[in-house]
C-alpha cells in the first residue's frame, strides 16, 4: 500500500492568514487569547481568541466573491484557497472535500442573523464551499464533536485507501458564538482567565476560533517541507458518559493502542505527544491517567489550547499542523499556561520551548459523546 501524506496546510486565526504567522508567534510563546467584552456573545467579559471580522472581510473580498458568505465560510474559503493555490492541484472527481466542524453556521439561527435560518444546515456550509471552488464530488461533512479535526485526517486516509479519492482537501472550522459560550458556561466549563492546561489552578476552557486546512495525498511529488506521513489512526469510545470523560481514560487508551498497533510502534518510539489539554479539571486528569496506563508519561507533551483556546471541530487539525511544523523545526513548543503540576499522575509537560531531534509524533483528542481519536505521524522522506 502506498504511503499517505499530510502536505500543504493553512491556518486562518487571530495570528494571521497563514500557518507561518501562527508558528512564529507560538515560537515566541505569544498567546492569541485575550479578554473580550462583547455583550452580543456573552453578558460578562470572556477570554477567547477571535478573528477581527473587518480585516477578515477585507481579505475575503479580494477573492471577488459573487454572493454573500457567512463569517465561518469566509474563514474556511480563505484557508482552503491558500492550499489549493499552493498545491497547484487540479480538482477532479477523484478529489475529495472533507469539512470538519461541530456547529458550522449555527449563528444563522440567531434572530438578528443576515442569513436565512436554513444556512445552519451543515450541508449548506458544505455545498457553499464546494461550489466556490468547483469541487465535483459531494462534500463529506464530519461532525463528531471535538475529535472531528483529527478524525478528518483519518477519514481522508481511509477514503484514499479505498480508492474513492486520490487527494483530499480538509477544511475545518468553528466560530465563537453565543450558542457555544452559553453552552460551555452552563457546564461551568469556561475559565475566567487565560486557560492553564494541566496546571494546579486551572479552572476551565477558553473557546477560540480558527479555520485550518490541509491536503491529504498519496502523491510524493510536490510535498511541502513539513509534510508528514500518516502512519496510523484510530477512534475509540469510552462507552461511559456522554458529557464527561471516562475516569480511567479507557477510550483514549484504546485509541492510542490501536494506532500503535497499526503503525507497529511501541510507546517509546513516539518523540512527542500533541495532547488535547482543554484545561478542565476532568479532561486533563483523564489524559494523565491514560498516558500513564500507556507508559507514555515521560514523552514530552503539550496542549496548544493556551495559544488558540479550544477551537472545537478545528482543534485536532490545527494542532496536527502545528505538530508537523514542530517536527520540521525539531522544536518542542512550550505548553503555554502551565506552572505547577495539577494532575494526579506524572506527565512530561513541555515547560519551555526547546530544540530536540524529532521524527514521530502522536496527536490525540477527546470529546463529548465519549469519543477519543489518536493519530501517529512521521516526517516524510524527501
Amino acid at each position, binding site marked *: 500500500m502506498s504511503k499517505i501524506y499530510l502536505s500543504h496546510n493553512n491556518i486562518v486565526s487571530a495570528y494571521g492568514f497563514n500557518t507561518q504567522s501562527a508558528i512564529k508567534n507560538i515560537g515566541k510563546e505569544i498567546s492569541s487569547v485575550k479578554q473580550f467584552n462583547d455583550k452580543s456573545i456573552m*453578558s460578562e467579559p470572556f477570554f477567547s481568541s477571535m478573528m477581527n471580522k473587518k480585516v477578515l472581510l477585507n481579505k475575503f473580498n479580494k477573492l471577488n466573491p459573487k454572493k454573500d458568505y457567512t463569517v465561518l465560510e469566509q474563514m474556511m474559503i480563505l484557508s482552503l484557497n491558500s492550499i489549493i493555490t499552493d498545491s497547484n492541484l487540479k480538482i477532479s472527481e477523484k478529489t475529495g472535500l472533507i469539512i470538519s466542524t*461541530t*456547529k*458550522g453556521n*449555527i449563528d444563522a*439561527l*440567531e*434572530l438578528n442573523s443576515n442569513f436565512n435560518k436554513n444556512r*445552519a*444546515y*451543515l*450541508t449548506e456550509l*458544505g*455545498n457553499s464551499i464546494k461550489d466556490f471552488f468547483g469541487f465535483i464530488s*459531494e462534500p*463529506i*461533512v*464530519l*461532525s*463528531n*464533536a471535538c475529535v472531528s479535526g483529527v*478524525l478528518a485526517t483519518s*477519514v481522508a486516509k*481511509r*477514503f484514499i*485507501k*479505498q480508492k*474513492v479519492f486520490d487527494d483530499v482537501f480538509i477544511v475545518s472550522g468553528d466560530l465563537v458564538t*453565543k*450558542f457555544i459560550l*452559553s*453552552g460551555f*458556561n*452552563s*457546564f461551568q466549563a469556561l475559565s475566567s482567565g487565560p486557560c492553564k492546561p494541566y496546571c494546579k489552578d486551572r479552572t476551565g476552557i477558553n473557546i477560540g476560533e480558527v479555520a485550518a486546512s490541509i491536503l491529504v495525498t498519496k502523491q510524493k511529488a510536490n510535498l511541502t517541507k513539513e509534510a508528514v506521513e500518516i502512519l496510523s489512526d*484510530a*477512534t*475509540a*469510545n*469510552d*462507552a*461511559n*458518559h*456522554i*458529557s464527561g470523560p471516562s475516569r480511567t481514560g*479507557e*477510550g483514549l487508551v*484504546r485509541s492510542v493502542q*490501536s494506532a500503535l498497533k*497499526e503503525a507497529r510502534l511501541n510507546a517509546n518510539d513516539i518523540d512527542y505527544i500533541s495532547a488535547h489539554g482543554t484545561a478542565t479539571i476532568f479532561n486533563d486528569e483523564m489524559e494523565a491517567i491514560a498516558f500513564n496506563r500507556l507508559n507514555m508519561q515521560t514523552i514530552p507533551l503539550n496542549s496548544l489550547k493556551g495559544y488558540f483556546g479550544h477551537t472545537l471541530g478545528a482543534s485536532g487539525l490545527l494542532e496536527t499542523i502545528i505538530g508537523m511544523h514542530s517536527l520540521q523545526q525539531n522544536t518542542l513548543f512550550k505548553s503555554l499556561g502551565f506552572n505547577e503540576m495539577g494532575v494526579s499522575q506524572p506527565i512530561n509537560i513541555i515547560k519551555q520551548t526547546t530544540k530536540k531531534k524529532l521524527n514521530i509524533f502522536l496527536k490525540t483528542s477527546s470529546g*463529548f*459523546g*465519549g*469519543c477519543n481519536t489518536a493519530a501517529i505521524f512521521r516526517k516524510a522522506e524527501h
Partner: protein
Amino acid sequence: MNSKTFIKSYCQIKDNSISLNGKVLYEGQNTEPFTDFIKSAYKNLDTKYAKFFKMDSLSKLAFLAADVLLKHENVIAEKEENIAIVLSNNASSLDTDRKYQKSIEDDNNFFPSPAVFVYTLPNICIGEISIKHKLYSENSFFIFDNFNPSYLHAYSTGLLEEKKAEKVLCGWVNLDEGEYNAFLYLVTKEEGQIPHTIKKINSIY
C-alpha cells in the same frame, strides 16, 4: 460485483413503524407525533433502559433502531464486541439546536441548560448506543444531502478490511421538523445472504 462483506440485519424506523429485516415489528398510530410514537414503541418492545427518557429525539431514534438490531443479533454488553458505529444524516442535531437557541435568545428569559446543550452534537447518539451496548469502538458521524450508500459502503468496508472493527453498525438517522427516518444495518465479513453492495443497500433502504 463480488462482495467480501455482508449485511447481517437491518432495521428501519419511519412512518410510525419499526421493521426488522423487512418485517414489521411494531406499528404506532398514524397520527401520533414522533415523541408519542417512540415512547409507545419503547414500551412495546420491552426496552427497559431508563436513560432513554433523558435523551433528545435524535438519540431516541438512533438508540431504538440500534437496540432492536443489536438485540436481534444477540449482542450483549458483557462480550464487548468490536462493532464500529458509522452514522449519517442531513439535519445534524438541528432539532435540539433550535430548542437550545430558544433558551438563549431572550436576555430576560435566559436559561441555557447543560442537559439540552450536550445533545447539540449529532454524535451524542453514538455515545448513547456505545454506553448501552459497551462498544468501545470506532465512531464517525457524517452529514450528507441525502442518504449516501456509496460513501458509507467505502468507509465501513475500509474499517473491516483494516481490521479496525469486526462489524460495523452503519446507516442514516435523520430527524427534522417532525419528519424522521432511521435506517441502520450491520455489516460483517461473515458470509451471509445479503451481499454488502451499494446496489443492495439501495434496494433495502
